[in-house]
């Protein structure tokens, strides 16, 4: 099964990236975690995301899109990155979520993916037909 580990961070954690000294402390454990995911053969993909202030949000309005600066809500925590993993079961996914390096101000969210991308293809084709 595929799962997504979402990393939400408070503004002060996200801001640590801008300070070279703090950046190393922030990235080193995440790098080790990424390597462990790869070596264990469960890593599918993942990325750190640019700061929320750089986001563009498109919202459906009337008959078209309306663009605005993100994030749309003044929430305490913002999505900072994600890992997509492929594991045998939910318990293994949870074990990997627990290993994601924690800092005070960081929340890790584990979500099951609805299905694998290749399983979605027939459904998409059906919609397009």
């Amino acid at each position, binding site marked *: 099964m595929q799962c997504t580990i979402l990393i939400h961070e408070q503004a002060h954690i996200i801001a640590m990236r801008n300070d070279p000294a703090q950046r190393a402390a922030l990235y080193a*454990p995440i790098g080790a975690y990424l*390597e*462990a995911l790869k*070596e264990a053969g469960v890593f599918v993909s993942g990325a750190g995301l640019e700061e929320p202030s750089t986001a563009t949000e498109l919202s459906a309005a009337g008959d078209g899109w309306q663009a605005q600066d993100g994030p749309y809500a003044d929430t305490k925590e913002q999505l900072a990155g994600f890992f997509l993993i492929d594991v045998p079961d939910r318990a293994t996914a949870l074990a*990997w979520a627990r290993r994601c390096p924690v*800092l005070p101000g960081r929340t890790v969210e584990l979500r099951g993916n609805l299905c694998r991308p290749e399983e979605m293809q027939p459904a998409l084709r059906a919609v397009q037909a």
Partner: protein
Amino acid sequence: MSDDATHRAVEQAARASYGRLLAFLAARTRDVAAAEDALADAFHAALEHWPRDGVPAQPEAWLLTAARRRLIDAARRAQVRRDALPTLLAAADEAEEQTMPDATFPDERLKLLFVCAHPAIAREVHTPLMLQTVLGLDAARIASAFLVKPATMGQRLSRAKAKIRDANIAFEVPLSGELPARLGAVLEAIYAAYGSGWDDVAGADPRRRGLATEAVALGRTLLQLLPAEPEVRGLLALMLYCESRRDARRDEGGAYVPLSRQDAARWSRPMIGEADRLLQDAQRAKRLGRFQLEAAIQSVHARRAATGVTDWEALALLYEGLVRLAPTIGALVGRAAAVAEARDAAQGWALLQAIPADAVRDYQPYWALAAHLLARLQRHAEADTARERAIGLCEDTAMRVFLRQQARNPP
């Protein structure tokens, strides 16, 4: 009587007797969920009646009678919908109620423990079932200790109870032939409560107590019910040795301290003393088992409090025995560590390398030990790679920091 005093009396009865009351009720009907509901109703009724009528002389007997009446009523209602079995059981129960002296009722908790760890019940739910039925812990608390969503834990528990009822699982103590295997499942479930799902009991953050206290309570309950089984003593001794070191696993600044560098003066002497006595009693039975061996390993570490040194040769021998009896990955890694200390790093490394790679891909202690031994063998590049892997597999911030520091201060 004031409401506060009543609440205290009800709480006191719940703490002291919840497991015994529930085990007695469930053993009669084989319906754990119905027994829990009936008992919950009885506690509610006590909150209503006791302030008015006073706390009864025998609170447990009062609660039992109230709960049994509820069960009998429920069984009568169910007669219309289901087969006659619950009604027959209820009728028998009603007849028995007339004759049983109020103050005493049989302790059925041992049977309940065996039902919780029955082979027909999913292994992952053995421990949660015990915690809920024998100790009366609520599902949310159990869920949080195992880092599972409360709703998920609630569903797992309900499914397991439905299984007990529908498969008509007998409330009985297994016959002597089956006892070792069935007892093994009970012991493992209690030990799992001690670790609360964490692999590395010794490394876990001491501030996150999890269910360690509850696990020790389950161990004591089991010992009281099965005093002749040496493995029960072994398990309790093992948990107490580990508990004795809880405060020493972090220094004043909160940094991780490995066992070999812990200040033995910070270990709890009373707990070590109790564990020593339990282990000695267990070994008198001359029936060695996995938990006695694991406790013996911890007793060797505990002896450093008195002697100031660790007998690594004794540890290597005990791990050798443990690997023969129960070759878990933890035992194999432990043996490699002990051999490396007792003899030399190369021999330890050879044992570590012999463990199948598939089994250790995400086993953190393996990579932490690999980093340590490779550094001692002056193979620094490989040590760094292994250390990164160990850091990537860590669940604990203090341990991550410790491993990072080791890269700067190799042994």
